[in-house]
């Protein structure tokens, strides 16, 4: 029966190519626009580290007076001061923890034909790699001893390893960065958490760190921050002045596997802030926060309002396209009232008519979905050229998107076809036959 209805549907669609074409085009446009924006949105709001997102936390400590009477998010900085970060590292109150900041190191390749470049370099502690489940191609992260020794060791991204060492196992080899020799201890597999949750101050959706070096070493070498620094009062103009200041510029992450651990850590943070009050550094009651990855992303509101607007517009667009398809389908089906009458008179049940037209709308939906998929691909390519390069990583279609697009198209079209189908079902055979003479 199905194949017969399918054939009928194809024949019927062929009979009125203009209406059929308009319907398919309307659905395809609507689906294409919707899926383009939804794909970008989904990538932007995805969980960057699903296995651990509820075990990783970013602490915040209020370290400057606030004009607000009640403690609020406004009075908290999104980063820590160097002083607080080091105090939290020393206390080691979590399973794993790391202070972080971004700097740039000059990479001058031994091969003179290659251009010298500055590469994003992350200063971190040894526990960074275990905490974020960073995958290694060769070697591993450095040791806690290297942290303590302020060692000149480096972990490279696979891109840098490919460029400088042609993809060979470079562990143990030396690389010159900012005129200093670093020993390679590890090479990463491709690792690009999107969004770049652990430091949202530079390009949350863009390129990520190319090299990693011990935090203690970076501080020794006065490697300057590439990021943002918030100062309640200007620091003394020296490296040491910045370190001792109340400027917040260090990211800090802790791993707390159980809920109880997080509760303990909250208490610990509050204690720490209260102590700062007793020593006279803070003149306000302790105010701290501890957020896990999803809360952190929501708090930082990294999804630009443009994306929300585009989603609204494209959903509205899909709605109009579907209303349009309903109208056209109604026109098409009711134009064939005569045929329906004949079929009914020859004994077809209402149910048979309904299945026939459901299949017909399904076929239209399938065609619209496939065309819509094509338009989505075009839309994503266009978005790639229109959006800033930091969003390029987001414009990919995967298998789920592909199947989802087609299914959405078929479902939406069949929904749009419900009323016309219902009208077809209600055709009175005798009346239709008479009218169709």
């Amino acid at each position, binding site marked *: 029966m199905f194949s017969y209805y399918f054939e009928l549907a194809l024949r019927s669609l062929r009979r009125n190519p203009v209406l059929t074409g*308009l319907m398919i085009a309307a659905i395809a446009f609507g689906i294409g626009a919707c899926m383009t924006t939804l794909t970008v949105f989904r990538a932007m709001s995805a969980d960057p580290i699903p296995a651990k997102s509820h075990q990783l936390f970013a602490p915040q400590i209020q370290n400057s007076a606030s004009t607000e009477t009640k403690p609020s998010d406004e009075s908290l900085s999104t980063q820590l001061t160097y002083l607080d970060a080091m105090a939290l590292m020393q206390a080691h109150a979590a399973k794993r923890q790391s202070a972080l900041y971004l700097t740039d190191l000059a990479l001058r390749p031994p091969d003179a034909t290659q251009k010298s470049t500055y590469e994003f370099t992350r200063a971190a502690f040894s526990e960074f790699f275990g905490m974020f489940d960073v995958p290694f191609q060769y070697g591993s992260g450095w040791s806690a001893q290297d942290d303590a020794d302020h060692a000149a060791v480096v972990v490279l991204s696979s891109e840098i390893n490919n460029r400088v060492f042609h993809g060979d196992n470079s562990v143990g080899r030396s690389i010159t960065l900012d005129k200093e020799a670093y020993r390679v201890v590890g090479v990463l597999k491709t690792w690009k958490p999107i969004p770049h949750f652990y430091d949202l101050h530079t390009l949350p959706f863009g390129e990520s760190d190319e090299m990693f070096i011990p935090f203690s070493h970076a501080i020794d070498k006065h490697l300057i921050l590439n990021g943002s620094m918030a*100062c309640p009062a200007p620091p003394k103009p020296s490296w040491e002045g910045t370190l001792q200041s109340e400027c917040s510029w260090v990211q800090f992450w802790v791993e707390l596997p159980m809920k109880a651990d997080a509760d303990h850590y909250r208490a610990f943070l509050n204690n720490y802030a209260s102590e700062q009050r007793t020593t006279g550094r803070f003149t306000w009651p302790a105010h701290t926060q501890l957020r896990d990855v999803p809360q952190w992303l929501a708090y930082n509101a990294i999804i630009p309002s443009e994306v929300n607007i585009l989603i609204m517009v494209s959903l509205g667009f899909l709605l109009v396209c579907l209303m*349009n398809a309903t*109208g056209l389908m109604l026109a098409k089906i009711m134009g064939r009232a005569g045929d329906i009458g004949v079929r009914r008179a020859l004994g077809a049940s209402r149910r048979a008519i309904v299945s026939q037209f459901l299949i017909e709308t399904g076929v239209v939906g399938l065609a619209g979905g496939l065309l819509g998929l094509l338009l989505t691909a075009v839309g994503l390519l266009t978005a790639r050229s229109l959006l800033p390069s930091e969003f390029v990583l987001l414009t990919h279609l995967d298998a789920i998107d592909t199947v989802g697009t087609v299914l959405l198209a078929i479902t939406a079209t069949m929904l749009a076809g419900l009323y016309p189908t219902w009208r077809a079902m209600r055709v009175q055979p005798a009346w239709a036959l008479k009218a169709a003479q």
Partner: protein
Amino acid sequence: MRIHPILAAMTRNKFGAILIVAQMAVTLAFITNSFALIEQRVAWSARPTGLDEANVFVIRASTESREDLEARRMGELAALRGLSGVIDAYLTNEYPLQGSGSSGSISLSPDKTPSMRTSHYLGDEHALHTLGVTLIAGRNFTPEEVTPHHADALPAARVLIVSKALADTLFPKGDALGKTVYVQDGVPSQIVGIVERLQGPNFAATGRFSTFAEDSTIRPSRPINEYPRFLVRVQPGRMVEVMKRAERTLLEHDNEMIMSVVSMKEARAKAYLGNRGLVVLLVSISTALLLVTGFGIVGLTSYWVTLRRQQIGIRRALGATRLNILQHFQRENLMIAGTGAVAGAALAVALNLWMVQRFEMVRMANSQVLGGALLLLVLGQIAAFLPARRAASIPPALATRGG
């Protein structure tokens, strides 16, 4: 022409008419809001920085640390100023359209209240001339006032040049010149000059950094460090050529310098790339929306014409002219589209109000709603014309056949 036959015909196809009304309403709601957004975004991207943008470029460089940094920077600066085609150059900390930059509070009294936020630029006595900004009151820095500045933190400044926007915020009476203000650390600075316009490095159109976009200060300091930023102004039309020569000249001074050279034009394009992308996407979706709605009307009206062939034939046989038939369909469409426009206008305003609350959306002007509604009515008339003309060509003889 009476309305009754149109209404009578329409009530026989209620659902189709309702569909078109709904479709037009949603279309109107979305295109008017898109227009408002497009207008706002285009205006944002067009905000002037106050600079002679066509003839200014920036060299962002990094070098190794050395002992004689100040002598090196001064040497490089002199070399840039000496290049043929260069009008002037100076060392800056930040530049407009850069993206992010340093900002801080500025207040009328040492105890920080009330305080405003402002962007801080550093520059020597060549800064104004290089930027090409217009001094509207007071004077430029003198060479004696300019101090070398070595660290990250802001240097204390005895004198300041401020943008007019900031001057007006601090002193609404317009008497800012010569007044004393306090920047961050409570050190008094005197306003010695006011420039007509100088945008801060943050170009964000929304959010907390947008509130002081036009408020900026220049301090008489020359940043001396391993990551210098040179701002260079060239004679009109010599940009490309001078950019290349400037890069070569700096390499001759220091072959380890890693540089990126950006014209203000490129900086502007990069700064507003996302904005432009949004505008292009909104324009294309709006156009597609209008097209889809238009073709939808063509489709449904064609169907109605087919459905009413016989009645049209009868009316023609009873003396209706072709024009009467054409008018019937055009007016029918006008009524439907008119209803859609009214419903759409209400929906548009509601959607706008909701979006203003929820997102950083602009209030829509009444003229935009009216314009959108007119556009939709015209679209309806054009879309109805094709099937209406077909209807008008139905011969009266059809009435005598069949039925």
